[in-house]
């Protein structure tokens, strides 16, 4: 078969507010950060500042509970990012934050691309840190008490869960729409799982 045209992806979907917050901060911009993220930030500082095993365990449990809330709390339907004096509003649509920027506004488009690039990089960083922490906990299992290990695992697993849940929401929304539109346009669909990917093979005769 020959090719009509191709396009490759540059960035991830903006699904996770924790990662989005990191990306916006790294760019030096601000946004109407949800209160929950402020609480998570404070809880992380409390973990760093905590002294004594029991205080550390308590601080970790508190942080894990807040991270769990990321999976269960309703995320804001729209957010506003302040970028060097200009503002842009992103709406939550189909499980991800997105917006429409006219092609003429190349400056704004570039700023949004910067956010998505930073988001992508931070998501990789978060996933790497999660894995490294889980690995280091495994190495420390003979040194730390069961309670310490449990509290640390709780933090990591809650963060992992928050990412998976937001991505899952996106996948559910996207697959539903794809299936509906393919069928409506007369395609027959064959759907299968390949690893963690959902693959649709659509044919129209």
């Amino acid at each position: 078969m020959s090719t009509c045209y191709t396009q490759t992806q540059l960035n991830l979907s903006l699904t996770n507010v924790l990662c989005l917050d990191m990306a916006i901060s790294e760019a030096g911009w601000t946004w109407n950060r949800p209160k929950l993220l402020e609480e998570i930030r404070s809880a992380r500082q409390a973990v760093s500042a905590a002294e004594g095993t029991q205080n550390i365990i308590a601080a970790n449990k508190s942080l894990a509970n807040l991270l769990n809330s990321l999976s269960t709390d309703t995320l804001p339907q729209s957010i506003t990012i302040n970028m060097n004096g200009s503002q842009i509003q992103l709406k939550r649509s189909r499980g991800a934050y997105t917006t429409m920027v006219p092609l003429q506004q190349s400056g704004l488009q570039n700023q949004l691309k910067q956010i998505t690039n930073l988001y992508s990089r931070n998501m990789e960083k978060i996933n790497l840190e999660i894995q490294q922490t889980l690995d280091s906990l495994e190495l420390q299992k003979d040194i730390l008490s069961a309670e310490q290990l449990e509290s640390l695992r709780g933090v990591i697993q809650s963060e992992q869960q928050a990412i998976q849940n937001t991505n899952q929401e996106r996948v559910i929304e996207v697959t539903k729409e794809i299936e509906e539109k393919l069928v409506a346009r007369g395609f027959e669909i064959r759907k299968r799982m390949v690893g963690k990917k959902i693959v649709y093979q659509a044919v129209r005769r």
Partner: protein
Amino acid sequence: MSEENIQIIVHDDGRIEFETHDIKGEACMKELEEILGQLVDDLEQATKTSEYHESPSTRKNTNQTKNQQTTGSGSP
């Protein structure tokens, strides 16, 4: 009779990839816009291959489009 084929891959992080086969020229883009226009940003920036630019009479009746999705700028 020819068949029009679209393969769409949805990754576990919500990214979308797609390839089309046997959908001619601009119809290929139009079809993708209808199906993925609300889900994939910058669809219009897809890289067209030489096959896309062939006239329908010389085209081999096989087209393919490949894409992955991005969110943050473009479609709502």
